[in-house]
């Protein structure tokens, strides 16, 4: 696919307006790569002036910091900020709430000041501005969709409304889980849990959350975080419901509902 790379754009004499921060999950994880591709499809279709860092992007340091490895976090932050500042980047969009939180809240006091938005907010803006035109009879019209709040988007950054507005724009019926918004249950991946086995217990967190989603009666579980997506996809598979229920990122919902 056609994805502009920041360094190449600079060499061509272009200064893109927005950096799309792909994140490690979005770059390497097979499932999350399709979210990345869906979002890039939308960016290309709308004609946004953007680029990615490509091979120069590094982990923001989020999992290292939450695990307690502040040295490693500071190392990553230092290198990323040096690069972002050298490219004079002003605005960043990302589909990962963990990258979003770190870039938006934790980099400024280390010298990295950017306008950072999450892709849910950007998608909502593009819909509101009429730049994303959805199909009259879209794939999700009338379907029951539930939205799983990512902790790093919701409780951590108070973004509850934007992803819901995106779902409602699909003419779908948004059904809430019993625990939602500020009471939403974690998927189990945060705090670097994604990268280790769960501690000893009597159940798994992603199964508890999958049960909430199944109880909602929705046929699509929408998420706005690649890690939540992985955890819930696993949960649905363990419940052997993958034929009936799809776990999709809001970027994928939109990409499947626009004329290409």
């Amino acid at each position, binding site marked *: *696919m056609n994805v502009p790379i920041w360094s190449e754009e600079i060499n061509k004499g272009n200064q893109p307006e927005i950096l799309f921060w*792909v994140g*490690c999950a979005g*770059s*390497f*994880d097979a499932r999350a*790569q399709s979210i*990345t*591709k*869906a979002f890039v*499809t939308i960016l290309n279709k709308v004609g946004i002036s953007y680029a990615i860092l*490509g*091979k120069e992007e*590094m*982990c923001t340091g989020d*999992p*290292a*910091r*939450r*695990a*307690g*490895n*502040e*040295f*490693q976090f*500071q*190392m990553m932050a*230092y290198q990323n900020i040096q690069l972002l500042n050298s490219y004079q980047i002003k605005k960043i969009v990302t589909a990962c709430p963990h990258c979003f*939180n770190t870039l*938006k*809240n*934790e980099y400024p006091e280390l010298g990295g000041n950017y306008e950072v938005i999450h892709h849910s907010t950007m998608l909502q803006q593009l819909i509101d501005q009429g730049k994303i035109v959805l199909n009259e009879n879209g794939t999700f019209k009338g379907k029951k969709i539930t939205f799983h709040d990512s*902790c*790093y988007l919701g*409780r*951590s*950054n*108070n973004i509850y409304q934007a992803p819901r507005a995106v779902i409602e724009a699909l003419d779908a019926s948004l059904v809430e889980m019993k625990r939602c918004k*500020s*009471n939403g*249950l*974690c998927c*189990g*991946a*945060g*705090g*670097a*849990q*994604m*990268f*280790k086995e*769960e*501690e*000893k*217990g*009597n*159940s798994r*967190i992603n*199964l*508890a959350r999958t049960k909430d989603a199944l109880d909602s009666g929705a046929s699509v579980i929408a998420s706005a975080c690649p890690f939540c997506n992985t955890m819930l996809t696993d949960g649905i598979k363990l419940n052997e419901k993958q034929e009936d229920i799809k776990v999709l990122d809001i970027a994928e919902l939109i990409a499947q509902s626009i004329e290409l």
Partner: protein
Amino acid sequence: MEIFQQILFAGVFLTAIYFFSKRMAMIRKLILLGQSEKFEDQPSRRWMNVFMLAFGQKKMFKKVPVALLHLFVYAGFIIINIEMIEIIVDGFLGTHRFLLGWIPNYYSYLINSFEFLAISVIVACVIFFIRRNALSVKRLQSSDLKGWPSKDANIILVTEIILMLLFLKMNAADTFLQSKGIQPYSQHFTGTFLFSSFAHPLLNYFSTETIIITERICWWLHIIGVLGFLNYLSRSKHLHIILAFPNAYYARLDPPGKMKNMPTVQNEVKYAFQPELAPSSPGEQAHTFGAKDITDLSWKNLLDAFSCTECGRCTDACPANQTGKLLSPRKIMMSTRDRAEEIAKKIEHQIDWKAEEKSLLFDYIKEEELRACTTCNACVEACPVSINPLDIIVQLRRYLIMEKSSSPQEWTSMFGNIENNFAPWKFSPDQRIDWTKEST
């Protein structure tokens, strides 16, 4: 006789206040064992938090029925303490119902509203007592509360019921004696009160002398009970009725997802990349990275620990706890306070606690508890009195990694991957753009 009662009252009152002040000074000392952290920004937002979260109990209202019952106890207890002013003045001056002389037209309204609140407190406390002991509310049955904490909760409920009953009984005896024209009660004629008058038929069975003694005993027990309770609460989980207010004021205002920065580490990393910026003389050294004991935590973490009333809403909301992991945010707070209280005992007995091996991490909080946290902020969101258990958890995690190099094997690999490949997974940086080479 009167003067003897006045002297006795002054003695009891001043002793209670002395011990209470001494205890509060100790709590202050313990809190200030923590590291300094400044919270002076945005005073208007902070006062708003005091008003909405502490005074207005906004977060309690996530569950309305419980919130209303709690509101009765809270309002009842605070407002009835206005009655304490009268009792204290009467006690010192040897007067009887001195407010009656000041506001003769409103006095009965005042006491009637106190009586209404006293009844509300009794009803709410009885429901709370049954709920806590007979119904299976998960957060109140948890093993966190085994032993002293569950006794503590019941002592508080029963004491509040007894104090309110004494207040009503005192009023009943007083107004009964007034109606019989007994001196000096009839000199301070208040008329009967709404609720305590229901006890009058019972009093007909007793002699006037017994009722006079009853009135005096109730008065004394009520004031001794309140003063005793004041001292008790400073040693119990009930301290939240005082500390919830400063705790709301000093709550962190940053987005909850933002972790506290460590400027020492930030600078070390900066000097590693840009040695020319490093100061020529090595600055203060011997920092502990992260927290091992309460002295490494911020003073706000310790204020949090003393503000905790062990309600367990945090633990109820914790995804790790719900799925049977060892982590309980409430227990993190209780352990922090237990450790502080242990140090208080050592200070009182002049034992050099700093020389001992014991610490919050390892002796009170186990690695396994800390490892289970997903940093989801549900505990922080759930707390009605602005406590942040997550802040303590991550500081202890920092100690484990940076001072002890103790991490689960998968995390060690993750750190290795981030260091070598700049991603938590084992992919090379070149593979970062592989997805762009595929079609959609």
